[in-house]
């Protein structure tokens, strides 16, 4: 029970991390735009 809980929690976190890394261009190139990722908050455009 405890073993399963620990494995499930850590593996789920690693899977989320891998998915987020997969979508981030700055994994391969420093400073590359991160706007592709939906996990990054985009700045709102200024109101007209």
């Amino acid at each position, binding site marked *: 029970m*405890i073993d399963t809980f620990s494995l499930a929690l850590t*593996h789920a976190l690693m899977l989320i991390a891998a998915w987020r*890394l997969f979508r981030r261009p700055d*994994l391969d190139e420093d*400073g590359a735009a991160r706007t592709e990722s939906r996990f990054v908050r985009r700045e709102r455009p200024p109101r007209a």
Partner: protein
Amino acid sequence: MRDLALIGFLCALFGFGFKRPFLFVLAYVYIDIVSPQRLCYYLLNSVPISLIAFLFAIGGWMAMDDKRDTRVAPRQVLLIMLLLWAGYTTYHADFPVEALGKWSWVWKALVFAIFLPLTLRTKLRFEALLLFMILCAASIIIVGGIKTAASGGGYGALNLMVDNNSGLYEGSIISTVAIAIIPIILWLMQHGTIFPPDWRVRLFGAALIFACVLIPVGTQARTGLICAGLLSLLMLRIVKKKVRYAVLLGLAGLVAVPLLPSSYTSRMQTIKGYQADESASTRLAVWKWTWEYVKEHPLGGGFEAYRQNKLRYHLVKTNAAGNVQSTETTAEYDAGRAFHSSYFEMLGEQGFPGLAMWLLLHFSGLLRMEIIRRRYRKAEGNDAWITPLATALQHAHMLYLVGGAFVGIAFQPFVYLLVGVQIGFDTYLKRRQREAAWRPLTERPTPQIQHA
């Protein structure tokens, strides 16, 4: 069910790797630390997944990764020399068959540590690698933490999912590593971008650190207590409100001591009365034997050379009967005892040349991190993560080097991942420094190094 889930997880990681080859590196790190093949009952046992991930990581880097400005650091050369030297001593080992057994995993750890810095080209890759290392170690530490909280654990009695005491699943090793990774967990909690700091990250991080602290209690490894003591001192270097930290630490100690299991406190007291303790006495006897051995064999005896030792040592027991105390000295005999110290392990197995290379590798790492810490101390904005990471890596390394004095973990693969990260971090900063220096003056808004 567990088997299928682990296979699914690995397939997902490998799948991502075909688009982003760095994920193959993370897959290898995962397999190296967690050893999913040992957690499975069937399927994964029969496939050499570690080797497959190793080949994919190197192949992915060679075929798909950007190799512009690839640098080889002096410590990578030192690792190559250490690898060649270990190969030589294995060839001439006193116990050729047993030595080959240890060589079979040592070479992989060293080759990967040489290779790893080549792949660490972006800040996100450092973070990703450290995050994976922590989460992989966490899969063992959370189990140990909960079981300790529930039952109190016991020396050699804490069940960490795998029975065979290898890798990080061994009690003394996991105690040292659990404490050594705390500075890195703290760094990820503050500077992480994969899981940006929020209440969930803080909650998980705090719970994980608590589990890390419980591991030495659960495994009852004395090394862990020594490491925890050093960590509490090292934290004084980074906390801003030092007096408040010292008071809180004292209070935490006062609350924790009565809650510790009595078997733990009695075992920890043997640090003081080591002469009456068999484990500590044999250690001293093994170290003495090693010293005598290398005086005759200065090039070491190859891996597993300890198997030939025959020890005679004295146990001093103090008996108290009323007001009268009497001491009793008994002679004990033992043979084939392990080194129980990374320093003596290097000395006995790899001789003076091996020990010198190993010491240079690790202590120059501490020094390099100190230089980076100081150089970027006042950096802000995009560079604010650099000094805290250098400090975290340095502290983790110091804890390993202190814990390693009492446990034979000179070639522990987890530590060589840390060494690889340190080397990659160092070359990454040098590359950025050079890029900044090449930029035309008009493009440089401030003399401070800018994010490329």
